[in-house]
């Protein structure tokens, strides 16, 4: 178990250009602190690559490579195969991809890499839209959210679909280790990175990373917003290993989604009946969670 006080003072992600209060920044920083210097990073087109690898200021002090949007899984496979062939051992190969880079354009390469069982960690930091290009909807954008390609209006509620469930898609691959996490639950997240590090074969961590710019909340509330989404049950902390899902945190009662939604500009237009629909969907998801994973 990792404790905050044991964490190295050394920074492996430093001086990046992310927006103030960026949840993804926390994810990159803590993950590399757990993994240490023998780590190689793959970064598809995303916020993470844009804010960390602008020549000549490189912000990761471990080897990294930016690459094509759809190819994270394949690049990780190649790195892993290359190291194996060269006899380089005890190196962590990790990819950080956004939700669009994972659930939309990157899902084919990710699926292939997981199916092959190559040795890597894949972190999807989920800020629920294409934030790097200016807040366009992705397959991970939640129902009702206004984005620049699903603007709310007289004929539109905003995004019309509920999120794709990447955690369950990974479970369907019978991946050795998969987890969900949130940048506000730092110890939980770091322990999951530590577990993923020690797993032989692929590991997938889907971490919710609130985005002040895209979601529309003050930058000092990132941690608070991340807690609210878990407390109201629109996100959950879980892990899958040895064929079983374990819930890491189950709120005794789920808080109303309204407080979480209304704290963000992207949901401000929602009416009470819309909020009710979101709550009903949340409840049906939790029924499945209790039925499938908590009995």
């Amino acid at each position, binding site marked *: 178990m990792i404790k905050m006080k044991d964490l190295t003072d050394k920074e492996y992600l430093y001086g990046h250009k992310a927006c103030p209060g960026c949840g993804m920044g926390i994810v990159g920083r803590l993950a590399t602190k757990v993994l240490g210097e*023998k780590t190689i990073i793959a970064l598809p087109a995303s916020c993470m690559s844009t804010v960390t690898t602008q020549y000549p200021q490189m912000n990761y*002090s471990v080897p990294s*490579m930016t690459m094509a949007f759809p190819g994270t899984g394949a690049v990780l496979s*190649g*790195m892993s195969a290359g190291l194996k062939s060269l006899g380089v051992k005890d190196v962590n190969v990790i990819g950080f991809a956004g939700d669009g880079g994972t659930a939309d354009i990157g899902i084919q390469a990710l699926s292939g890499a997981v199916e092959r069982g190559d040795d890597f960690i894949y972190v999807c930091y989920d800020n629920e839209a294409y934030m790097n290009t200016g807040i366009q909807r992705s397959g991970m954008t939640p129902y009702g959210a206004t984005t620049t390609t699903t603007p709310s209006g007289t004929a539109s509620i905003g995004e019309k679909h509920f999120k794709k469930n990447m955690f369950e898609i990974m479970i369907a691959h019978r991946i050795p280790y998969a987890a969900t996490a949130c940048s506000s639950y730092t110890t939980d997240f770091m322990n999951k990175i530590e577990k993923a590090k020690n797993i032989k074969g692929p590991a997938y961590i889907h971490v919710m990373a609130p985005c002040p710019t895209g979601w529309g909340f003050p930058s000092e509330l990132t941690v608070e917003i991340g807690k609210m989404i878990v407390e109201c049950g629109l996100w959950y902390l879980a892990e899958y290993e040895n064929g079983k899902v374990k819930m890491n945190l189950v709120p005794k009662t789920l808080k109303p989604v309204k407080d979480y939604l209304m704290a963000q500009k992207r949901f401000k237009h929602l009416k009470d009946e819309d909020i009710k629909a979101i709550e009903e969907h949340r409840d049906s998801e939790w029924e499945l969670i209790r039925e499938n994973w908590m009995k």
Partner: protein
Amino acid sequence: MTNQNIVSSREFLNGDEAVAYGARLCRPNVVSVYPITPQTIVVEKISEFVANNSMDCEYVHVESEHSAMAAAMGASMVGARAFTATSSQGLAYMHEMLHYVSGSRFPIVMMNANRTLAAPWNIFGDQRDSMAQRDTGWIQVYVENGQESLDMIIQAYRLAEHEGIYLPVMVNLDGFVNTHTYELVSIPSQKEVDEFLPAFASKNAVDFNNPRSYCMSASTEWNMEFRYQQHEAMMNAKKVIESVDKEFGDKFGRYHGGMVKEYKCDDAEVVLVTTGSVSGTSRLVVDSMREKGLKVGLVKLRFFRPFPVEYFKGLKSRVKAVGVIDRNLSFGYEGAVGSEVKSAMYDSCGSPKVIDFIAGIAGRDIKKKDIELMYNKLLNLSKGQKEEELQFIGMRW
């Protein structure tokens, strides 16, 4: 441990198999490939080598061509020697990755089986797939037969990994005509190839004390300089292509001509420029026309990028007319090689006399009589008769 003690031999191989044997001799650390007709035999043969413990590599069964190149790039980034192969739609699918690989200077070698692009869908050969990748920053060589295929895979690594180059190389074989045609191929011994192509001491070898970022973003202030260096590396390759081919010739007894290979051009009045497998047939036509006293010659263009501009500048004063066989077509203008040849030969003293012949599209045979027709048209042009600059040969109408 893998038993890769290959002794020299002569085998009856098709072009795809020759590529696989060539790749095995180069000892790539990682092979990531996806099957596509008519490249598939390469994938199968390498799988067979690995299954029989006669090739020591990590074989990554990727789920697409885009991933084939992405995986090769990942491997190259950690210092491994990577190999892949593709064709046509597959090459088109990995187009984005081609830019990434050349722009970040990964010395990956890829075989491409030249096949036409859909639509209309067709699996047979022409060179539009690779010619359309002209500006991706890959060194491109076109080979004629199985032997040249094997030899150029080996030479390709020497070029790609050369200190002053560090660029990816694409070795192009005409689909079916080369990939599926059996010939006797000399396979050098592993020892000889190891001497010619030592183990890869990559500049990209992982160094955690000196961490590097690859493929990073470069703003407007820096980006143009990176492109210039890429261009410079490509221009450097011209000399190295020649010296590596000479060294290969000295060691293995087969010099392929460097950037271009002439045939009976010394006193030729007209020459035809060819790429790939049609060169062999064209030489037979040159011989038969020479017997009739006609002064015709052949220029086999081997490298499309970098392009042998200097050679074609020199050719202008030596001949009266030049024809180009283009097994590709840039719709709305002409064939890709024709454009390059004309551009290279043009100078302030006037324009060259060139006919661009579009032929052999989607696997259509280029027959001896077609080539003879092309030479006759060139002879007409050389005598001052009018000929269309762009001509389609072997059409149904």
